[in-house]
């Protein structure tokens, strides 16, 4: 029973870490800066 529980919890945690980590890294620089031309409509971005 313990092995089943540990496997499920471990799989859930590692999947989350993997997907979240990849998405966090991929989007890491997406919102760093705003170009001057975009400032007038900054609020909609």
């Amino acid at each position, binding site marked *: *029973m*313990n092995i089943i529980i540990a496997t499920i919890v471990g799989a859930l*945690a590692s999947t989350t870490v993997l997907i979240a980590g990849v998405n966090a890294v991929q989007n890491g620089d997406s*919102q760093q800066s*705003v170009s001057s031309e975009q400032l*007038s409509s900054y609020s*909609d971005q």
Partner: protein
Amino acid sequence: MKRHAPDLAVTGLVALVVLGPLLIGSGFWIVGDMVFVPDQQWRPAWLGLDGSLPRAVPMDALVSVATAVLPGALVQKLLLLGGFLAGGLGIARVVGDRAWFARAAAITLFCWNPWVYERLLIGQWAILLGYFVLPWVAVAARRLRRDATDWSPAAVALVLSAICSPSSGLMAVGVLAVLGLGRDRRAWWRLAVMALVANLTWLVPAVTADSARITTEGVFEGFAARAESGAGTLASLLSLGGIWKTSIVPGEREAVLLVLLSCALSVVALRALWGSGSGRARWLVLGGLSLALAFLPVIAPDLMEAAGSAVPQLALLRDSHRFLAPLGLVLAVGMAQTATDLRARITPETTALWSSVALAVIAPVLLLPSLAWGAAGELETSSYPQEWSDVAALVGDDEATVVLPWGSAYRSFDWNHRRAVLDPAPRFLRGTVLIDDTVRIEVSEGSGSETVIVPPEDPRVVAVGTALAEEDPAAALRALGVRWVLAEQGMVAITLPSGGEVVHEGDRLTLVDLAAAGPVADDPSVVRPDITVRRRIFVISGHGLAILLLLVGATWILRSGSNERHTA
């Protein structure tokens, strides 16, 4: 004290991991609406005396006073750190009868979720502080329910919430009403009076904001919650995300699977709450109301528009995503119950269930790693160039300054990593400082999109915009009573009005003195706040009554020493 040590450790760790770069570095976090300056100048608007809508009243006044004593960067650090500590320790107190790991689960969910991320990245730090006060409102509500005469914690919590922002004040009233009221009608009346007095700080300026031109046209739809991923808007909201400003949404929130896993976490927390003991109905009603309020502008924007047309002050409520805050409180309590239930299932044959308890504690962090270390590097610290202080020293208390470029209140300074931020000039310079606060929002319209333009609320800004379009803008500005034109360089090309003397010309700022080429009209009513005696009396009285309620409530708590007797 020993019992609270794990709570302090977990909360401190969360705060350190989130705020680390700000706490150990020098300078400010300047992003979106979060603008701190070394010494925030005092102006009547901070108390709501100038007739504009009170969006940061009286928090800006408090910051101005604090920066007169302490450096602005330190004030920012203290406020954000204090907020996280208050929130974490507060939610631990709400679930204080649970084991330490259950309290830890509540702390991580409450302090580490998409709502906190998105409000921090949009720069609404005062609303974030209001969120962190909510657990204390819940504690006060519990005491009020047990003893209808135990009103003092509720009074203090209500005033502190209202100080943070109008929406925080309203949410605190809602939380207190749902969690704290029973059948005792006297308690209803008492709460109504306390709620009214506590919120006078912004209510009086809002009601007397006759100089502000408030528009609600399109704003509810424009600021409505949005889907962050293919999972849809409701899934975003149920997992505490869905802010209207899509540019600040972290990558994790755009992944359908992660949003669905976050929803699953919320469902698990709500399910555990459903199976808990007495009081569960109140918590579930609170969560349901919070979700419904956030979702309402999505499904019924026309209804909100109609209500806004009748009561323009409802524009203050346009950003409905912020009203998800009480749901964060509910889910945190549910998460504590989840950890408790999991622990109860552990037998000698199922000791591995401890790993699921641990997962309940760290799941919010795993689902949103981007919140770590200044939003994964998004929030780098910045310091103002010396030029800003040089220019500020030239402008007097009784003078008006127009800040260019005109057309937006947001700037992307090279010294601030080109991050979009509200113009710091109104906080940095003395006197009247006018910037164009026109807001443009893209609203989805079928397959395409439509731009909703929210015009400036301040008629003085409209007058300056007209003057700048004149053939001789310098003369037109002088006629309005404007002496200075400050051009913030390095973003878009700026045409300075001819007919003035450049008194400062640096790499980033240019200051033009229009008075050098002609007399500046001495008509304070055009560009300077028109503070009537009547408004002054009303507004100051409102603040005075709220402060009085705070002081009486705090004194009553200290005097009775009841804080310790009612904590179970």
